[in-house]
């Protein structure tokens, strides 16, 4: 077994530099790599490009990096819940590449799987397709989208083992598996790190080969953005 563990978040982020392209898992605040984000803030890494479906909220998630003006460019599908994001984008301080959500996921998966590009119907006829090759297959139009290239990928899993195998929980899975192995170095933080052999090999969501560094995260807040409930009758 190849041991993928590192001692802590500091070791996990070694090599992260200003100007890098970073992938970050999560959907809204669900399943985000909270420890890695906190460390990026602490390190004061600047001018980074972040590939992430959302940009957190004003005071949590990637919103923390936005507040510190650490982000040069965001590649996301949705920014609806973040006022600071919208402000920086409309003022031109922040470069933003809005990408359809399924295209965003597949651009990660293509990088993970060694596909240079793929054809998707999403965005055909819209400004997303401007400057991109379009092509007809079987009477339908498609846009050619290229795989992402990133330096680091930060993901959050529920359980992981020392071999780097990951299991996600509920909808906290989202973009995390697609981003594993999609960057030069994939860093996974987990709620529970167990010795290799404890996880059922049949139930691994992401095999350790896609993960370079894994560590036991801590102090997860797991904030809820929209607490919606029903009352007992």
């Amino acid at each position, binding site marked *: 077994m190849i041991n993928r563990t590192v001692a802590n978040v500091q070791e996990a982020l070694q090599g992260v530099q200003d100007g890098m392209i970073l992938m970050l898992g999560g959907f809204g605040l669900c399943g985000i790599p909270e420890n890695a984000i906190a460390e990026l803030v602490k390190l004061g890494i600047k001018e980074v490009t972040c590939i992430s479906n959302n940009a957190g909220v004003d005071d949590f998630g990637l919103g923390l990096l936005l507040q510190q003006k650490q982000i040069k460019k965001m590649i996301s599908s*949705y920014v609806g819940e973040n006022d600071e994001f919208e402000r920086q984008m409309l003022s031109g301080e922040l470069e933003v590449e809005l990408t359809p959500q*399924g295209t965003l996921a597949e651009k990660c998966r293509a990088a993970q799987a060694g596909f240079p590009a793929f054809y998707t119907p*999403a965005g055909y006829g819209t400004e997303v397709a401007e400057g991109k090759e379009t092509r007809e297959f079987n009477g339908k139009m498609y846009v050619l989208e290229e795989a992402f290239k990133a330096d680091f990928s930060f993901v959050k899993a529920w359980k992981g083992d020392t071999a780097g195998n990951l299991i996600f929980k509920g909808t906290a899975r989202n973009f995390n598996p697609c981003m594993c192995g999609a960057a030069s170095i994939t860093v996974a933080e987990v709620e529970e790190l167990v010795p290799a052999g404890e996880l059922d090999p049949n139930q691994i969501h992401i095999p350790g080969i896609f993960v370079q560094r894994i560590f036991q995260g801590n102090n997860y807040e797991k904030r809820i953005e929209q607490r919606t*409930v029903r009352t007992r009758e």
Partner: protein
Amino acid sequence: MLDKTGIARRIAQELQDGYFVNLGIGIPTLVANYIPEGIDVEFQSENGVLGMGPFPFEGEEDADVINAGKQTITTLAGASFFDSATSFSMIRGKHVDLTILGAMEVAANGDIANWKIPGKMVKGMGGAMDLVASAENIIVAMMHTNKRGESKLLKQCSLPLTGVGCVKKIVTNLAVLEVVDKGFKLLERAPGVSVEDIQNATEGNLIIEGDVPEMTL
């Protein structure tokens, strides 16, 4: 005239037994509350869940179980969780039978705009571009006019598009319309709404054939 709940109730009549359905944020989310009796449908949310149930009871919210609107949810027996790539495989691969979503503008040729007002508002397209480019069966749920009273059913969209020629049906507070070759075909009127009311609120070509029935809810 319908309120948002009424729109959702009318759209719920479009559900068919065995349908896998993706509901957008806003009015579409309400559709889940009005599933006709005797049919089984399953709701997919593009953040990675199939088989969504109602909101959780207070105190039972799980931060790791949300829908695409970031609302806490529950799941029903037979549910599954999956990653974003798999989620859009369901959508792009046409395994989802019906997509219901909101819009800022719809054009008579089926174009839809719902993600951006240049220089003013940019929410992002989220999964909407994938959904509208892929689904065979798209219903738009929206108010017939915007806050300034201007029609949202246009000859041509003025806002940046989300997708081209994809909308099949529209349910508004005033009417049910089908997108056909030459424009919006009026299928039903909302209770108490006249054909003239609808005509006045519709900028795009409105096609009226024979008597237009009032919808039943």
